[in-house]
């Protein structure tokens, strides 16, 4: 496949891996402890497992799978709100595919569908708007979910609905923003991260400037990375080079897609339709200030939260779940008390088991099993 296979070239990967090994040998901290690099984005987590990248890296590098899976970090209370809307008889509830499996306190959208709710999978919010045009007698609600990557497309759909005067379309807005979340992770006291792979798709919208504080104030290197396996390897190599040279910069590996200044029409649409919430609840991470957006008052008629009274309940994460510690890289997925026991992809307790981009689900399905066993052996030996 053109423009794809070039980024999966095995021989180029081997050259990079060799150089990564050389760099690691030259980095002092690697003698004491593993170098921890967090990939913020769930898309990266998926690629890392899909191509077996972790196993190609020297043991001295530890990849920490960050909070960037929007499906995973959605709290149970919001899923319950979403079900309350979806179960109304006049509503056709539209959603991206993998959000259908996220468990609420009672059930998931997939189960609600089986129980009779009209839940439909769409591939774009514009498909939901088309449904609204076709079904003037029904209320079409789109489950707005995702970081800045998907935010513009929802905003543009709302603007299109406004232009066309479509009254039976609304968005249940759960969009979240990445920067406050990275800041919350950096402020966490139990953190050891040495560098970040920055989210490629988010950055295509917001550019690279919003990350400057990471380098300047927190003194951590970040490389905005693409999603093909060579992109990821090269970005890891770039982070390591910064660590070795004692530099902390925001570098852009994904320059073929990510403009430094971002995408201004997309940002304008987002600014027109949304405003920051004071705080937003994240599964596993708790409440984070200014980490979510809601629809501005001018667009209230397209806001499902205002249109339908939702219970707006807050439900604490299950106590046994250690999603938060996994998200921050304090523990590895398999070190969680319920991993693979009470919490599996079939019956996910914690958010990270839900989507294939979630760290736990990725470990469970794509392996890391070898590392898991290494770890068990080490622990058994220590005891």
């Amino acid at each position, binding site marked *: *496949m053109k423009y*794809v296979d070039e980024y*999966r070239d*095995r021989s180029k*990967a*081997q050259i990079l*891996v060799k150089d990564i090994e050389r760099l690691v040998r030259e980095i002092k901290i690697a003698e004491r402890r593993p170098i921890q690099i967090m990939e913020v984005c769930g*898309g990266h987590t*998926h690629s890392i*497992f*899909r*191509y*077996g*990248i*972790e*196993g*190609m890296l020297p043991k001295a590098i530890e990849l920490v799978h960050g909070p960037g899976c*929007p*499906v995973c970090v959605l709290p149970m209370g919001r899923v319950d709100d979403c079900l309350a809307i979806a179960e109304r008889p006049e509503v056709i509830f539209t959603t*991206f*595919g*993998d*959000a*259908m*499996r996220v468990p609420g306190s009672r059930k998931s959208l*997939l189960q609600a569908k089986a129980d009779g709710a009209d839940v439909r*999978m*769409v*591939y774009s919010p514009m*498909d939901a708007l088309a449904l609204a045009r076709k079904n003037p007698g029904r209320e079409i609600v789109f489950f707005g*979910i*995702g970081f800045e*990557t*998907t935010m513009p497309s929802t905003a543009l759909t709302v603007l299109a609905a406004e232009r066309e005067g479509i009254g039976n379309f609304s968005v249940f807005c759960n969009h979240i923003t990445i920067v406050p979340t990275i800041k919350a992770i950096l402020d966490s006291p139990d953190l050891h991260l040495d560098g970040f792979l920055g989210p490629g*798709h988010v950055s295509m919208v917001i550019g690279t400037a919003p990350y400057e504080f990471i380098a300047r104030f927190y003194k951590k290197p970040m490389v905005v990375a693409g999603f093909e*396996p*060579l992109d990821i390897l090269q970005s890891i190599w770039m982070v390591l080079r910064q660590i070795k040279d004692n530099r902390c910069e925001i570098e852009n590996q994904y320059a073929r897609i990510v403009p430094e200044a971002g995408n201004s029409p997309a940002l304008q649409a987002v600014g027109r339709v949304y405003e920051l919430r004071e705080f937003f609840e994240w599964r596993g991470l708790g409440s984070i200030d200014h980490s979510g957006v809601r629809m501005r008052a001018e667009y209230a008629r397209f806001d499902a939260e205002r249109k339908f009274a939702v219970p707006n309940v807050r439900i604490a994460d299950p106590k046994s779940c250690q999603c938060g510690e996994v998200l921050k890289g304090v523990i590895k997925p398999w070190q969680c008390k319920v991993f693979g026991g009470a919490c*599996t*992809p*079939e019956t996910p307790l914690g958010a990270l088991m839900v*989507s*294939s*981009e979630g760290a736990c689900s990725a470990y*469970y*399905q*794509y*392996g890391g*099993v070898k590392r898991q066993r290494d770890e068990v052996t080490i622990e058994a030996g220590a005891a």
Partner: protein
Amino acid sequence: MNVVPLIHRRPRGKVHVPTVTLAHGGGGKAMKDLIDDVFLEAFDNPLLAPLDDQARLDLAALGRRGDRLAFTTDSFVVDPLVFPGGDIGKLAVCGTVNDLAVGGAVPLYLSCAVIIEEGVSVDFLRRIARSMAATAREAGIEIVTGDTKVVNKAACDKMFITTTGIGAIRADIDLGAHRARPGDLVLVNGLLGDHGAAILGARGDMALETPIASDCAPLHGLVATLLAAAPATRFIRDPTRGGVATVLNEIAEAAQVAIEIDETCTPIREEVRGFCEILGLDPLYLANEGKILAIVPAEQSQRALEAMQAHPLGHAASIIGRVRAGEPGRVTMHTVFGGQRIVDTLVGEQLPRIC
């Protein structure tokens, strides 16, 4: 030209209305006319013709074909009913023929039970019946008994078909997943994931135009070719729902072995790869309807491969992996990129990823 009158046969009924109604399932003349005009007309064979409650098969003749009877059933509820490369009728025959064939059986007889939603056009029903008949002829199998039900609107999605098949297994053939041994090779007869991608594309939900057609085909001939070339073949399965990944996991579990496949040897059409890239799907889990996965001892694998490649349904056959003595039940893949990952059983349905 004189037409010879069929005086010794019951005159065949005719349907004179454009759509199927509940009357066609009522057991009276309307139903008889529908069966005559649509099914009997298409399936026409002496075992079916009397339209008794059962087809009566000659045991002695069956006994000459083998020493065991293979018996299987499958229901078909595909949406859409017609898709590039086939339709529900072709699928209903191929599916059951293939379930017989991969057990090493020669497929012989088929039953056909159809549940029809009222309002389906008679012409469409006729088209499906003719498609079944044509596929049955291609597979050398006869549809010898059947049933028709008509249900209220929305009680079924236009049409469901259940086919049950009988075949005979020769005494010298013994296939089973548990027989896989370390060192055996894993073969497939061609490009993977076409059917799954074709169906998803044909649903039209995602505004993706794809030239991908279903691989739906009867595989009895290919299986016979394979077994002639590699009589020590351990096991054959058609990787339908759940795809190749699921079948590999079942084999690894049943034989308590590990299986390793190599992504670079896994034949997948460029269009299917692209389709999966866009939707965030994994082609290893997509359904196939014209593919077999075979476990063959290493010493016969080259002959097996060449025999498959010489068959019209096996041009793109490939050795995709190997059975190993490693951790029982574990399936792994060497990725194109040089890494290694686990290929696990799918938990539910594959859902497209958000971004």
